[in-house]
């Protein structure tokens, strides 16, 4: 019996909690892509770099605060810097909209033109991010490292294995829940949120109802900036800031959006968790879990890993392909041409 419990704890510790955390981060990132998609009607390839940019600004402000001796106790100081990161990112996104996308919007260009422009923005941001903070990894997490330590868990349960929850993981889950609830409240309950949905649903009719498209677009960018920055900072707190890893988030994010149904906020969240759990489940080495569960003589020799972690984006890709083949509108019937 304890063997099974131990196996369960190992599973929870190495698969469930990390996947849940990663899923929250993906969901936030995907929400940004889906919002842009439904309001501006293009797939924003700059989302990954936007996340990186927001994170970089937050890191720089964090360092500044730290140099002043400011801290948040057991919470990471980055939390205090986050609003400024969001603000700066929102400002930059509004500027890109003003000087890049708006022109194509007034010209009613095809969506692929927007996609290409977003690729240009992505590369500028890519350069700026490295210009600001260099190409190296940075660790900016401070405060208490663990929310639930291994010792505390063992003392509490008496098991051999321990479920460890890092502060960054707990923070990710809590912040993601708060943000998602706030976003849905905004979209469902406020006048502006409803106008945004109306604009996404039927642009011409929204205009006829007196909804100001420029305002809707601006608010969309600001929300995207907030979602992207929070997602990026949480990802950075959780796994350390690596510039390239934000570019690599692009594929899982797109996969999540399409799996859930493009343009559907709820779809982006579900999609994020589907991708995250698939990725972690497929790339986890089950040797330890199996050693507990199976009789001693059947214990596996190898790692029992379905796919090595280098191929983790293959998981997103395969899921993406399956969805495109089987149900291109995604789980929640999003838009498809």
């Amino acid at each position, binding site marked *: 019996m304890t063997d099974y419990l131990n196996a369960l704890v190992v599973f929870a510790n190495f698969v469930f909690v990390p996947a849940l955390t990663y899923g929250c981060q993906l969901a936030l990132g995907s929400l940004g892509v889906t919002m842009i998609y439904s309001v501006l009607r293009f797939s924003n390839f700059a989302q990954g770099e936007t996340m990186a940019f927001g994170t970089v600004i937050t890191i720089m402000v964090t360092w500044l605060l730290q140099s002043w001796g400011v801290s948040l106790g057991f919470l990471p100081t980055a939390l205090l810097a986050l609003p400024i990161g969001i603000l700066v990112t929102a400002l930059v996104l509004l500027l890109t909209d003003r000087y*890049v996308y708006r022109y194509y919007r007034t010209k009613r260009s095809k969506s692929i033109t927007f996609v*290409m422009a977003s690729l240009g923005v992505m590369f500028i941001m890519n350069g700026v991010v490295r210009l600001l903070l260099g190409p190296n990894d940075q660790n900016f997490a401070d405060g208490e490292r663990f929310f639930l330590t291994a010792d505390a868990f063992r003392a509490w349960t008496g098991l051999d294995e321990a479920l460890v929850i890092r502060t960054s993981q707990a923070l990710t889950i809590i912040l993601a829940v708060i943000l998602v609830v706030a976003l849905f409240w905004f979209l469902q309950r406020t006048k502006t949120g409803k106008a945004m949905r109306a604009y996404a649903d039927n642009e011409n009719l929204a205009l006829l109802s007196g909804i100001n498209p420029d305002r809707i677009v601006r608010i969309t960018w600001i929300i995207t900036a907030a979602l992207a920055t929070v997602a990026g900072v949480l990802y950075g707190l959780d796994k350390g800031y690596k510039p390239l890893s934000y570019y690599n988030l692009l594929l899982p994010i797109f996969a999540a959006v399409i799996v859930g149904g493009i343009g559907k906020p709820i779809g982006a969240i579900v999609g994020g968790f589907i991708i995250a759990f698939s990725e972690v489940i497929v790339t986890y080495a089950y040797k330890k879990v199996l050693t507990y569960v199976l009789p001693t003589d059947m214990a596996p020799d190898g790692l029992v890993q379905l796919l090595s972690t*280098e191929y983790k984006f293959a998981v997103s890709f395969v899921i993406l392909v399956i969805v495109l083949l089987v149900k291109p509108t995604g789980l929640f019937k999003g838009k498809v041409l």
Partner: protein
Amino acid sequence: MSQRPSNAPLHDNTVRASIAFLVMAGLLILIGVTQSWALALTILNLCIISAIMALGVNIQWGYAGLFNVGIMGFAALGGLATIIISMPPVKEAWQAGGMRVLLALITILATISAALFVHKLFQGKRLHGWLIAVVIIIGVVISRYILDPGVAAIEAVNPASTGYLGGLGLPVVFAWIVGGCLAAGAAWLIGKIALGLRSDYLAIATLGISEILVAVMRNEDWLTRGVKNVTGLPRPVPYELELQQAPWFINLVERLNSGSLAGLNSTDHTAVLQTLVVDSASIFVKLCYTGLFALVLILILQLCVLALDSPWGRMVRAIRDNEVAADAMGKDVTGRHLQIFILGSAVVGIAGAMLATLDGQFTPGSYSPLRFTFLIWVMVIVGGSGNNLGAVLGGFLVWLIWVEAEPVGFWLMDALTSWMGDGSGLRKHLLDSAQYMRVIIMGAVLLLVMRFSPWGLLPEQNR
């Protein structure tokens, strides 16, 4: 953007093109005179390869409006072809695990056919998807079971110098064709899945496949040696060392430089001749590459021009200019797009193989989306989407800027920050960051050209 309104200005392209290419030649000559001829030729060779890649992308974007964000993957497939075709086979590795690899390959093929069979048999029935999934999972498990020990054995064979299967030991030029075929195969697969859906989906799917292809090449050591790189790819042209010893070459150099050599005493004569031979050998090798590459470029360019003027080309352009109408007229839009996508990717694959050949090595770690996807896009857009000559010009010009931007950027930063003094941390940071400026500049160039000159330097000619 790919749609050209009927009232867009008609430029006289021949004059523009001649001037543009003359300017290009002038720039290269300038580099030759001020920096060195070897450098000018190196840049020229890479310009030609870039031009071919841009041509491939132009086929997809300019002819059909297909947005391929996975150029890197197709180029890397071309590079892979050079290993498979030209490297000598590693006999011990084949003995150690070759059979298992082949068997695993057969298992995978069998799995695919089984999955297709199940798909046909159970189409529309319940459990259809699950049955296919079961077949694929069983197939994957079996092939992994066969493959894994084989891979371990192969990678254990003399890992410092081989540790992989090697290739077929054929002349490397064949790899250019095979590289094109590999890229075409990958394009077929992606096109089958993503074409006919929203245009963004192709972009996302190509982004995915290219990341996966490069990940495979980085991690499957038995195939590519992974990050240990495969160096010493055989060349289609002579080696410098051979040339330096070849009497005919020494005689040639002596004859060409008879003017400057005359009047030197015999010891000086030998020494000067020696350095001349060394320099000339390097230039000669580069010229050989230039000739070969130029041949390929002209061939592909000619084929592109012919194709665009054929009935097929007219249909393709008709589809691009009005997809809805073409669809209504019963034209198979998706089928045509698939052809174009495959053709364009094949051209990129060929260029990828040529690049690995020129480098003389295959380094999976060097494939970055920045250099291999984005830069090519800038070339196509700057050159003039839809115009073949424009793509070539874009390839030349943008590559030149890309290469020269780093030293110029560094020099500029250095000059601008020199007042800070050498100890300054900020100055060091700015100097270190000069390389990122060129990424930013390229992004800005893309956006500016898209906005202010959407038809590029050489706009597509109305016919």
